[in-house]
């Protein structure tokens, strides 16, 4: 029944989004891209794709960072176009997507100020999707409580931050904890929001977000080995909306090394496959890449269903992956480091 009235509000945008999705580079494009000798070649080839003349006004020689900027700029323009044309509840949904970038930006700025970097140097590094009005004044805050009271209280992130106020100073460890707590709160809120929308959106998005939550839990666990993070604190950082919840997370909380994490993942079919294929040897894919691959396949699957919001999320994530791929290839081309050029993650 929801499908019948979906198109009234979001039909145009969904169509637009699917149109954008058709512009995502295909395997054949990547095969051409990896043959490039210089960045100019890369530019010439990208001109033949949906990217068109996005680099035409850049004076040569090109640098990888300009390519990166331009790629991101194009994506942001597209996303903001979608956002500007959306109405409730899609607009809230799209806002939710941007919150993760806001979290990243906040953490970036705080870490930067902690290392005494001038704020003007940090701002250009922030993701434009996650910018908010008070962002640039973030360095007035010295403690989490101040951060909350002065800066974040007016932003949509305020409800996520409530758990972090108790932290004492902003040191490196605490920033990591803040980041993960924020993320946990954000993911859980996003998950609930999607559940509340219901229908196909819930089916698709909960799947993707559950994976995202589990991935975070696993990565946090693996990264925490050898740090002073206690097991209790660690357990508090796990987002509790994934498939690992609750047994898997409990097991993860007890884990002491990589093997134990792997053992936990054994119980979950899809994750065990990821651990199986991953390795640190030359030629093997890293666990991170495996996760990315899985995420890409989940996002690609989102396009198989119609009348849901998941396509917007998936489009953004796929496009981001594509940007990472292009930047990776351009880095390899620029540094003449061709042996690893094939380590991109193909989407279609």
């Amino acid at each position, binding site marked *: 029944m929801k499908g019948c009235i979906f198109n009234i509000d979001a039909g145009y945008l969904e169509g637009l989004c699917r149109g954008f999705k058709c512009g995502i580079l295909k395997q054949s494009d990547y095969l051409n891209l990896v*043959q490039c000798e210089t960045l*100019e070649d890369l530019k*010439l080839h990208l001109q033949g794709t949906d990217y068109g003349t996005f680099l*035409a006004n850049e004076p040569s020689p090109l640098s990888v960072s300009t390519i990166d900027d331009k790629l991101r700029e194009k994506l942001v323009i597209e996303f903001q176009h979608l956002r500007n044309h959306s109405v409730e509840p899609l607009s809230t949904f799209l806002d939710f997507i941007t919150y993760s970038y806001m979290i990243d930006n906040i953490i970036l700025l705080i870490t930067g100020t902690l290392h005494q970097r001038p704020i003007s140097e940090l701002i250009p590094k922030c993701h434009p999707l996650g910018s908010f009005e*008070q962002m640039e004044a973030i360095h*007035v805050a010295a403690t989490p409580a101040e951060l909350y009271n*002065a800066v974040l209280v007016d932003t949509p992130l305020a409800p996520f931050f409530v758990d972090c106020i108790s932290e004492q100073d902003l040191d490196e460890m605490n920033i990591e904890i803040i980041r993960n707590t924020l993320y946990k709160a954000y993911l859980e809120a996003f998950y609930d929001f999607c559940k509340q929308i219901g229908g196909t959106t819930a089916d698709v998005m909960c799947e993707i977000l559950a994976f995202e939550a589990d991935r975070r839990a696993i990565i946090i666990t693996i990264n925490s080995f050898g740090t002073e993070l206690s097991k209790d604190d660690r357990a508090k950082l796990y987002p509790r909306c994934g498939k690992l919840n609750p047994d898997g997370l409990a097991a993860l909380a007890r884990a002491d090394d990589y093997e134990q994490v792997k053992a936990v993942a054994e119980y979950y079919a899809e994750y065990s496959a990821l651990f199986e294929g991953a390795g640190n040897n030359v030629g093997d894919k890293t666990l991170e890449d495996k996760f990315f691959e899985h995420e890409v396949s989940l996002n690609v699957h989102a396009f198989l269903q119609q009348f849901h919001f998941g396509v917007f999320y998936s489009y953004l994530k796929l496009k981001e992956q594509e940007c990472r791929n292009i930047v990776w290839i351009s880095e390899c081309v620029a540094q003449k480091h061709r042996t690893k050029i094939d380590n991109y993650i193909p989407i279609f």
Partner: protein
Amino acid sequence: MGAMFRSEEMALCQLFIHPDKAAYTSVPSLDVCEAVDLNPDVNAFQRKFVNEVRRCDEMERKLRYIEAEVHKDGVHVPSVKEPPRAPNPREIIDLEAHLEKTENEILELSHNAVNLKQNYLELTELKHVLEKTEAFFVAQEEFGMDSLTKSLISDEQGQQAASRGRLGFVAGVVQRERVPAFERMLWRISRGNVFLRRAELDKPLEDPTTGNEIYKTVFVAFFQGEQLKSRIKKVCTGFHASLYPCPPSNTERQDMVKGVRTRLEDLNMVLNQTRDHRQRVLISVAKELPSWSIMVRKMKAIYHTLNLFNMDVTKKCLIGECWVPTADLPNVQKALVDGSNACGSSIPSFLNCIETDEEPPTFNRTNRFTRGFQNLIDAYGVASYRECNPALYTIITFPFLFAVMFGDLGHGLIMALFGAWMVIKEVSLAAKKSNNEIWNIFFAGRYIILLMGCFSMYTGLVYNDIFSKSMNIFGSSWYVPYDNKTLESSPAFTLDPNDSYIDVPYFIGIDPIWQTADNKIIFLNSYKMKLSIIFGVVHMIFGVCMSVVNYNFFKRRYSIILEFLPQVVFLCLLFLYMVFMMFYKWVAYSTFSTDLAYQQGCAPSVLILFINMMLFSSNEPEAGCKEFMFEGQGQIQRVFVLVALCCIPVMLLGKPLYLLSASKKKKKDVKPEQSNGSVNQGIEMQEQTDIGDGEPKPEAKPSGSGGGHGHDEEPFSEVMIHQAIHTIEYVLSTISHTASYLRLWALSLAHAELSEVLWNMVLTFGLKDSNYIGAIKLYVAFCFWALFTLAILVMMEGLSAFLHTLRLHWVEFMSKFYQGLGYIFQPFCFKTILEQEEKEE
């Protein structure tokens, strides 16, 4: 006109060019050739001239930048009258240097301008800060004075007041839309201990880099304590608020304002000068800009063409392949020689024709008159190579069939005038280059519209129909035999031709007397129906006959006997015979006839006769009449139908059986494969002989018979199936297509009725009154009538008649002979390339 009959003969030519300068200069002389891509599997960035293309890209980028700057300042860009030639290699370097210089100059200018403007902006902001904050400080000082007076009273109190009075403050400017958040933030970090005063600037300021207008607000934040100050400053930088020094005392402030004002005036002068200078530079650049961009585009097009060419193994020459119309070969060769001479290359470029079994592109040379008609045909499908081109006949049949449906002298006149206006104003209208798609369609079809209008006027005259009224020019052939008394007695009378017709028909077209007749529609229907069948059958027979031309040309003479003959016999014996019956009926039956059997009332229905003929049945004639029109008609009809039926198996089996026997005969006398050794004779140059052999193209397959139609290889069953489909389609289509031509009658009827309704319902309303009110009514009614006439009758009906005509040509006419499997010839031509790019922009 011979060129229109079929597409031009094309030759695949091999081009040998010296790879350096000569290559570049010879390409423009190929403006009647279509280059074939010799490296289709090579990436865009791996081609030979990719660096040159990149240089062009870079130049285009500079041009775009300059153009943007020129547009930003609103400098008028004059249009070029004579598009410049493509620059030769030396000029390219000059052009490149020139562009580089201009770009740098403009870059520097704008950089300076931005700096100056930044300065100017800061000073203006400072001025505003000083002026606007005046009021705040006055208020504060009053308070301070107040506290001073208080201190006289009590020392202790005074000290407190003094410390309270010595509030620190910062003054600055912030963007207006960020004010609320800014204020809230300040309040939050200080827990409400900051006092913010603000005043909005009325006039927008100019953003130095983008030139956009920005609205800003002046603020003064009062606070206490150094720690708070640093935090406030942090917030200010976070919100991009620019802070300005603002002396606390009144006199200092006023001095400062004065200083700032003089500095502003100076700066303004400098700014104006830079602006003038910039204007001068841009104006001089703007003059050159269009010709530069055309030159660069031409260059790019040349290099793109060169990229299609192949490098010879020895790297001594560049080999290209292109299709050239045979008629233009000498011109191209001459142009090539001239091109290589012009750049002083020692090795001339060569052009050699090579044989190929590839299907050449279809090229019809058109002029502005025939182009529209050719487009109508190409829209259906581009003719196969050297196939008979129906566009030639369409020039007349199209407007004519349209006019049969659109027959109205008045509407035709409007259309003809519109078409004539476009044709007369052709040059100036074409120069305007509108982007309106509908207008462009009309304009492209201006000659079609003109002809359609003229033909409609003619058919309108024949139908005697002008805005649904008739004209009595030559005097009606009918007269009223009754006297007034009888006429008054009844509203309607029947005019018997025996005593009210003078036996000489009206000079041209329909007698105007029919306009007043009750049975006008019945009469016209019978007339127009017959007319459309007659035109249809003639049109179709003509189409079938056209196929002979194709069979003859493509050396499939057997098809003339096995396909064309049965087809045309079938069509003639059945449908042409029906047409004959119509004419016979018109001629033989008359009320003045002496023979009773040919009197009025005895004329048999052609349709019934035709149906009876097909079914071998008969109807009982009315008393005193005969069933048939002439003696022996029954026998003749029977023979016709039998012969026509015999044609069907010939159509069905003739060709397949012939092909079968021919292929068997071929197998019997096995001939050795013909070697196409003669191919290399064309290539006699010493150095090129090896190249000729190296090319795989020429002898890939032994070419079949002239047209290269691959029926020989097809298995018998497939030929049989094809032929069966064709036969069934043809036999059925003779009936359905004949019926389809009845749309000529239907649309014509609809058009006439609609225009009559419009006249009766709208204009008559204004014509009824004879006093002054009638004039006003007529004025209004005429407006509506004219509007509807234009919108519905001319535009909408015209469009629908156009579409039906198009269908009659595409389906009913062209299906009889046209294949339309070719692909269009796209010669390398600067004009189309430039136009295309303009469209994309």
